């Protein structure tokens, strides 16, 4: 409608209420339960396997510029770099956006510094800005994977058609691959060539799970409650329509 009807105003108050209260609660330190994402439990196994075969680890940040998606990916990268630093393994990070390079460098150095291994690997050969052109980016990273015989390949963030080039190159090199992306169109290509694929809202859940940022975690929980309300409405509406065949009461109420 041009202006909000009564049901829409109720929905807006309800959903905003859920989201804002959950953000405030998590800011005040209330411990919030987030179920672990099954694809991400195997990150440690992937790094362990790569360390056994003494093959490097690669972490792709996708095509995101400064945005919520980039911060989710960087949170997971921080975790991976710390785990790899403990086993003194290098982590290669190819990048597609100049602004993302600066942020990634910061996270990368913190990870190694936290494990007391600052000087172990040179930043220049681990972090490299490839190109903002999708086909050049895909070809460049595919070549890098094959040349360095990468052992574990993590693909986080949004991707275009270059997702195919990376997934196929990684699969050819026999790497253990985990993909986690909100872009729904590339999920089929990841699904058939990666060992684990995480997609849709789970990408944001992964970001929240690793960096425990109160705003992101709180809003995720608030969104869950909103989706629960909508789910109950759907089940109720279908039941009512099946019982009262003639008039669809809940639909008329919502579209008042």
């Amino acid at each position, binding site marked *: 409608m041009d202006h*909000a009807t009564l049901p829409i105003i109720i929905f807006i108050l309800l959903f905003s209420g859920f989201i804002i209260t959950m953000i405030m609660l998590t800011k005040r330190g209330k411990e919030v339960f*987030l179920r672990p*994402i099954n694809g991400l439990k195997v990150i440690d196994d992937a790094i362990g396997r790569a360390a056994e075969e003494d093959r490097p680890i690669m972490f792709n940040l996708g095509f995101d510029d400064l945005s919520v998606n980039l911060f989710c990916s960087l949170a997971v990268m921080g975790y991976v770099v710390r785990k790899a630093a403990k086993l003194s393994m290098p982590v290669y990070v190819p990048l597609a956006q100049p602004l993302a390079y600066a942020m990634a460098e910061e996270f990368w150095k913190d990870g190694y510094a936290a494990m007391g291994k600052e000087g172990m690997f040179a930043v220049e050969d681990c972090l490299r800005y490839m190109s903002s052109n999708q086909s050049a980016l895909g070809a460049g990273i595919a070549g890098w994977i094959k040349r360095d015989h990468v052992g574990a390949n993590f693909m986080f963030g949004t991707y275009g058609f270059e997702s195919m080039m990376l997934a196929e190159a990684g699969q050819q090199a026999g790497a253990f691959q985990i993909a986690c992306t909100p872009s729904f169109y590339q*999920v089929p290509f990841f699904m058939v060539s990666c060992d684990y694929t995480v997609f849709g809202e*789970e990408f944001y859940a992964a970001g929240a799970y690793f960096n425990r940022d109160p705003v992101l975690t709180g809003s995720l*929980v608030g969104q869950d409650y909103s*989706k629960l309300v909508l789910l109950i409405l759907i089940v109720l*509406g*279908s039941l009512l329509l099946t019982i009262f065949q003639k008039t669809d009461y809940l639909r008329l109420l919502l579209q008042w």
Partner: protein
Amino acid sequence: MQKSKGKIFWIVLGVLVLAIAVWGEFRAGSIPQVAARVKDLDLPNLGVYRLQTWIAALSCIAVYSFLFKENPFYRFFEHALLGCATGYSCAVVMRQNLYSQWLVPIKKAIVNVAQNGWTSSDAATIALILAGVIGLLWYFQYSKKYFWVSRIAMCISLGAGAGLAFKDTFNQLIPQITGTFKNVCPSEYVMPGATLMERFYMGCENFIFVIGTVSVLMYFFFAFGNKNPIVKGSSKIGRWYLMIALGAFFGNTFMSRLSALIERVHFLMAEWLLISQM
């Protein structure tokens, strides 16, 4: 030995294609469709059309050559494309957008005000000058000190986007929710004149639809229900539904990419080599 055999193969293929193309040039004059095409694109004469087709064909081959190795032939055409695309969109914005949707109305409003005094609509149009001033703020991003000023224009667009997001979201969401109220066993009232079997099939279809939406919604729950058996079971069903949806996405992606390539092959063969029907 392997490398040289590959090279010979490509040289032979190249010469063959070139021969067909040159042969096509001689026949071009006599083919009626080519003349019709020249009239359609209202080009001055056949020569210009053939030159345009040759350059278009060379740029296609340049792009496909990138598949094997990045080469200067490809980089030349890539920079040419970048130049054309950027130039064309800036020319359109300057002429059709800034000049005639912003400057011309303001000029007309000022003339109108000068002649017969202030009216509310003229004042509103003149106030749009403020939009131009704020638009110029974008260019402060080149100065280190006043970088944040360039963020003002971004904030205005972001704020407007956030404010309007509620309208866009709920105007789309409500019909999606009420659209999922499906009648699981439709009666005679709902489907007049349908046999029992048809109504049973429609009931099953609606049941599958509602179960699909509910289970995939549960699949994307993160904050609760981890141990609850219903949520675990239905999110497993949800994952099967998602597999089928992803399969449909994959199938349709292939459809698009194939038709793009076939359109290019049609151009190369029909308009350049003139060996297939226009």
